């Protein structure tokens, strides 16, 4: 869990820096497009991993036990 949080913080920082760099510096168009295609989804995903609620430790096993197979 700690590794996941740390990776998400690193990815969030990297994607923020990449987006800011493209906003402040005039790179060639293809570089800006590549950064936008990768960094915008990455920014949202890594932020989501940090904001999402985690299951309580006693419920964690139950949550991942099996896929949803019906009501």
């Amino acid at each position, binding site marked *: 869990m700690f590794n996941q949080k740390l990776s998400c913080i690193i990815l969030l920082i990297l994607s923020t820096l990449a987006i800011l760099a493209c906003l402040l510096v005039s790179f060639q168009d293809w570089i800006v497009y590549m950064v936008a*295609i990768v960094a*915008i989804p990455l920014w*949202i995903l890594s932020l*989501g991993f940090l904001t*999402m609620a*985690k299951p309580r430790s006693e419920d964690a096993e139950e949550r991942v036990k099996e*896929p949803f*197979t019906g009501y």
Partner: protein
Amino acid sequence: MADILINVIIAFLAGSLLLGLHRKIMARVQKRPGPPVIQHLLHSLKFFFKETAFPKTVSMPFYIGIVFILAAVWIVGVIVGPVTKGSLLILFGVYAVYKIVEHNAGSSSGSPYGKASCVRAVLSAATELPLFAAVVLVYLKTGSMNISSIIAYQSVNGPLILSIPLAAVMFFILLLSKSPYSPFGITKDKALISGFETEHFGLLRGYIMFAESISWYVMMWLFLTIFFPPLSAAGYLIGMLVITFITAFINATTPILNPNHSVMTQITLGAVCFIGTLIMIFI
């Protein structure tokens, strides 16, 4: 980059609100009060804070990677569409990848419902035939696959919806198949719970909703741009509201088709419109 960011935010907000309106109209047609128009947007944001766990049976890292690809392809859609007005072929590719995402999201989930939806995603690729045919017909008429050239062509020769209306019908079928609760929406049939999204809950569901809001906006923007004369922002807004209203009305009054009927209906409509348009162009 500022242009891309602004367009992505507009696409997300407008797409979410229009999908909320779609749901509201469907409810009113069915004599239900329905949720507020802003509900789809609120749900998308709410899921980012919901408890999320990843079932043991999912195929990591593909299970998460596939939703990342979904968001990335629709960012490509925004760049090629509203930002650069580039090639229709790339947007055709974006839609093809979207179908691959539907297939793989289902197969990576480990859920029987996801896997059934994954199989149906292969069948529902039939929706790409009307899209491909519409793109070919637009090319035959305008001599270009470039959206900015198509806009220029229409400002001189009039809107394509008047000269090749059946191609517009084919494109509209694609929009209909992409709309929620569509008669052609066999991958999200309620018999399959949420189809390929069944095991993508919490954060990942919010992420999928973010991408689908953008996709709804981009598809409608594309339809209005390639078949209507150059529109102002108000023109796009009115056009999107009208399309949302029409698709919501059709979806509220039409049952979901079974997979075979869905595929055959789309292919038949596509073939009739394609031949009809060829006759209109060459005779």
